[in-house]
């Protein structure tokens, strides 16, 4: 009886495995040339608006090629999980957007079609794309797994009214000036003895954002987070970068401690719009602030301050969205056509204008890209932005360190800013999690 049970269980396991396995062909068929499924990442404040922007453009594509595109817009918070599920089951879209920092990690799954020079030539050659954007398409030295679609960089947005009231004329250019400006902006306006207007607003509970700051500030001091594939998170430069970030709320006291609870950008925008914060450091916003009825009379845009002497001038990482083709596609040539269409100069102008992002292709020009915001962003992209670590463990790095920084900010908010030794020890433990079992 026992032997029979064992046989049954083995058979069951085999069926389970094969049932999933049979669905996973190894990529790039042409059996379904008239239809494409496209997973677009949410780029505007609402999924609905993304659809309204993308659908007319995709209709043009259908008119040109006769290929129908089934569009699904997915918020970034759900996108990675959906991609992983699709990768495991082999049931996914033909074309998909990915957060550009995930490129190397997703490349390692082997689920994405590679973009060698022959493939890139179909898009007009790699030379059409900005070099900094191309550096986000996969691991160093490997065939890229994605093509740049939209770019963003961190920028400093400042509230002109509060700057005037504080007697500040120019946005800060260095971090020292930044903290000094923050201190002048932080004050008690209703006379209850507690400050209610602050220098800076932060989205403190978002691990992705916390990691961005830690990475930018650490890299400016020369921190390297990976040595080959080996994590080296606990360098003194990395620790100093994190301490700088925490000190804005802690020692410098230019951030409302309650910001440690902020889970959404909307919390930060509201503080900025309602004159409760003078500055915010966010990725290229485009039209977001006009939703709050702000114009460039109300706010200014500047580059992220620099570290000054003794460091590297780094103001941002290269943020944005890439586009990839799923290997399990049954319409490879159609998928390439769609990528070609979306990265063509006219579509790049339309889409990047609508989303308020920076086009990664050099031949996309137009009046929408002559604003100070985009000019500064393009300068940052060209000379002050670095890619996130180009290793398969990048998503682990983002999650593990991001979570730690969020916790430290929470400690700082409750009056217990961690010291360098505590930070260093926790970074070392986080590095241990990256290698564990993997």
């Amino acid at each position, binding site marked *: 009886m026992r032997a029979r049970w064992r046989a049954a*269980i083995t058979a*069951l*396991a085999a*069926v*389970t*495995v094969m049932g*999933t*396995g049979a669905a*996973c062909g190894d990529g790039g068929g042409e059996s379904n040339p008239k239809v494409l499924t496209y997973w677009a990442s949410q780029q505007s404040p609402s999924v609905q608006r993304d659809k309204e922007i993308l659908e007319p453009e995709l209709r043009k594509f259908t008119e040109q090629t006769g290929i129908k595109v089934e569009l699904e817009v997915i918020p970034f*918070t759900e996108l*990675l*999980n959906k991609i*992983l599920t699709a*990768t*495991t089951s*082999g049931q996914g879209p033909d074309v998909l957007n990915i957060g550009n920092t995930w490129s190397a*990690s*997703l490349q*390692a*799954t*082997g*689920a994405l079609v590679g973009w060698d020079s022959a493939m890139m030539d179909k898009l007009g050659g790699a030379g059409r794309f900005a070099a900094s954007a191309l550096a986000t398409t996969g691991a160093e030295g490997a065939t890229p797994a994605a093509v740049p679609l939209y770019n963003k960089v961190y920028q400093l947005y400042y509230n002109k009214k509060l700057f005037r009231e504080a007697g500040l004329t120019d946005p800060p250019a260095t971090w020292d000036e930044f903290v000094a400006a923050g201190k002048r902006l932080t004050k008690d306006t209703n006379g209850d003895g507690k400050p209610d207007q602050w220098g800076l607003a932060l989205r403190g*509970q*978002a*691990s992705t954002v916390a990691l961005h700051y830690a990475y930018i500030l650490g890299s400016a001091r020369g921190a390297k987070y990976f040595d080959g594939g080996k994590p080296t998170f606990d360098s003194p430069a990395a620790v100093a970068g994190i301490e700088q970030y925490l000190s804005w709320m802690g020692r410098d006291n230019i951030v*409302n*401690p*309650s910001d*440690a*609870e902020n*889970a*959404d950008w909307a919390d930060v925008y509201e503080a900025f719009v309602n004159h409760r914060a003078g500055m915010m450091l966010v990725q290229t916003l485009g039209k977001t602030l006009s939703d709050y009825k702000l114009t460039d009379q109300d706010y200014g845009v500047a580059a992220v301050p620099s570290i000054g002497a003794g460091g590297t001038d780094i103001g941002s990482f290269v943020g944005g969205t890439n586009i990839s083709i799923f*290997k399990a596609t049954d319409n490879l040539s159609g998928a390439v056509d769609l990528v070609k269409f979306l990265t063509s100069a006219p579509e790049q102008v339309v889409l990047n204008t609508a989303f308020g992002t920076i086009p990664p292709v050099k031949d996309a020009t137009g009046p929408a890209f002559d604003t100070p915001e985009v000019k500064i962003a393009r300068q940052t992209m060209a000379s002050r932005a670095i890619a996130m670590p180009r290793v*398969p463990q990048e*998503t*682990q790095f983002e*999650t*593990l360190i*991001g*979570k730690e920084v*969020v*916790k430290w900010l*929470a*400690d700082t*908010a*409750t009056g217990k800013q961690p010291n360098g030794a505590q930070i260093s020890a926790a970074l070392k*433990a*986080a590095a*241990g*999690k*990256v290698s*564990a*079992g*993997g």
Partner: protein
Amino acid sequence: MSRRRLTPYLFLLPALALEVFVHFGPMIAGVVMSGLKLTQYQLAQWWKAPWAGLANYRVVLDVDQPVSASLLSSFLVTVGFTLVVVTASWVFGMAGAVALQNTVRGRGLLRTLFLVPYALPIFAGVITWRFLLQRDNGMLNHVLVDQLGLLDGNAFYLIGSNSFWSLCAVETWREWPFAFLMIMAGLQSIPEEVYEASNMDGASPWRQVRSITLPMLSSVNQVLILVLTLRTFRNFETPYVLFGGTVPDQARLISVEIYQNSFLTFNFGLGSAMSVLLLLFLMVVTAGYLALTRRRVHEV
């Protein structure tokens, strides 16, 4: 066995096979995955992932390693959380059910009101709590600090050590209507005459609860406590929604920990090993609990 006796079983066989497959298929897949070295490199063809034997379990159980230390801390948080929530839910459920046992005016209305948290979609309910508990604009601080003046400065409820109690409060709010519902149903089955007889003997209401209600509810309570414990122990949605993605250490439940290990750090083998250990733990607890309580229930 004659053919006639076999026939009904043959008819049942397809349904049984399907049920076994649907029920145990994912579990077996999980157990198999826990023995694989399964990270993003193997994901697209996970059935070809190299066999890791017990390596994942060794990582999970070696408390000197960061992965295991953090799992252990989340396990302890979950045990504390489960004890608090199950106790509080049961006490509230019992109190509510006993209070509404006798016909009081507006009983139907109160019953409906008590069940609202249970009927509300999880996200809607928990996100409302998030708003209430915010430090600057939340209602709790507004009442405690601005109106009653009980606290000096605004406290944090969503970060730091208070986050554990916030999580317990929200989860109790979600779970106690279930306890209320079960106990209320159990109370209906206690014959009215028993209470009448004890009234004649001059028993106080408190004595009635202790000597009649509780013993006669023991079989309901046995199931209720078990179900509450299992539900609470595996809870994921409440911390995930309440803390907006990054759960503070003090409130990090074990399912959040497993989620982070599988989906955020791409280590599915490790995540599966943790899930299997959780499954084993809950099976042991359930078996132990049933063995311990069976005798007592039967004595009644």
